[in-house]
């Protein structure tokens, strides 16, 4: 069976060669925000499907081929890749997967549930040995209007055993991203783009460098530009001088 599959793959690859230049590097030409369930990496695409991580081969880029499925608990919401490693945010846990073999992600660790309540949207960004994740609980139908919303910092020096270093309260955090030693967080609850100094990952400092912005959802930092998406538009900021974060553009209407 495996041989047939391999033969099939080879055939697809040959076929692809007829139509496309098999250049995988091209595919890594863009970047997404922190809140997404789709990503590509070295000729593969990963798709989060409720309780599984699907791996598609893009050998023939116009016809993704499902080559691997990894089961998890329900509630997968975000995927981010850093240093040959997949970080998944789910409604209950942080998952870390090894993709030394990108065709077959392997579970390295899964954190325990931090809170009893189910949460929503847990984007994760990673810098060196630390992972930064926002979590939020919006009003609960069971009557408990608990708002456990926070930024969580994990020490991931040992990817098989992430450790919670610290948590910082936020209102309704969404997407996040960093530039150098500054972490930007979209806080929809306070209509504010928060900026934390992460020079010391064990003890972040909330700065006053942030900017007010209505309903921020997610962001992408690209060089000295930062794109912040809100519910109904997006805005562009110049972040070359952190002491003077300037709005330089918004969308054409």
């Amino acid at each position, binding site marked *: 069976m495996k041989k047939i599959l391999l033969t099939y793959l080879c055939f697809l690859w040959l076929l692809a060669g007829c139509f496309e230049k098999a250049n995988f590097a*091209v*595919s*890594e*030409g*863009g*970047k*997404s*925000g922190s*809140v*997404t*369930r*789709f*990503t*590509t990496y070295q000729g593969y*695409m990963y*798709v989060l*499907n*409720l309780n599984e991580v*699907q791996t*598609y081969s*893009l050998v023939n*880029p*116009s*016809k*993704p081929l*499902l080559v691997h499925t990894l089961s998890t608990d*329900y509630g997968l919401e975000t995927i981010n890749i850093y240093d040959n490693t997949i970080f998944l945010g789910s409604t209950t846990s942080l998952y870390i997967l090894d993709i030394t073999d990108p065709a077959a992600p392997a579970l390295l660790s899964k954190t325990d549930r931090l809170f009893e*309540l*189910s*949460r*929503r949207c847990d984007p994760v960004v990673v810098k060196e040995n630390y992972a930064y994740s926002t979590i939020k*609980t*919006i*009003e*609960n*139908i*069971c009557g408990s209007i608990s708002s456990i919303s926070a930024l969580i910092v994990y020490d991931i020096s040992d990817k098989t055993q992430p450790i919670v270093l610290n948590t910082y309260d936020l209102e309704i955090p969404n997407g996040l991203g960093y530039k150098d030693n500054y972490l930007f967080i979209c806080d929809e609850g306070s209509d504010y783009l928060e900026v934390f100094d992460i020079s010391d990952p064990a003890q972040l400092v909330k700065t006053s460098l942030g900017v007010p912005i209505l309903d921020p*959802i*997610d*962001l*992408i930092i*690209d060089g000295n*530009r930062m*794109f912040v*998406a*809100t*519910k*109904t*538009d*997006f805005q*562009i900021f*110049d972040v070359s001088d952190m002491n003077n974060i300037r709005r*330089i*553009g*918004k*969308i*054409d*209407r």
Partner: protein
Amino acid sequence: MLKKLRYFYIAWVLLFYSCDKTPLEFYDGMGKRPKYIALDELKNIKSLPPEDITASGTIFLKNNLFFILEQRKGIHVYDISDSLNTVNLVFLNIPAITDFTVSGKYLYADSWTDLVTIDISDLQKIKEVGRSENVLNPVLYPLLYDGIFECVDASKGAVIDWEDAQLIDAKCITSN
């Protein structure tokens, strides 16, 4: 049949997930009702004139193009080469979409239970070039909402929106 069972199972899992004591009951009152499109409509993938953003989602930056999802409808594409003068280029109509990524000249997106590949080399004339059917489980509840809603009936088509409605005997409720 199998798929229906699975949906049912997911609904149950979600129901009991956070609300240990939620009894099985029917709900009356204001809630959300799914709006459906026929499954054939999912293939209506095409470029349309630019539109305003009303309910954003996933964002993606590729060179000078900024992609921003419009929940269950499609993707807005902006030219951001000049920050001061961004240009709203086109709206990519992709019914029932909730997430996507871009790689090379292809855009990959969910399309209800399908995964579609779209050639976007000509943004003004995109075209579907591949579709893997029945590989994804779409979200069957209204996002960013707490309350009762009419359960999704997959036989009616694909859900593209949720509207406010007076519900009687609704059997679904969010479990955030």
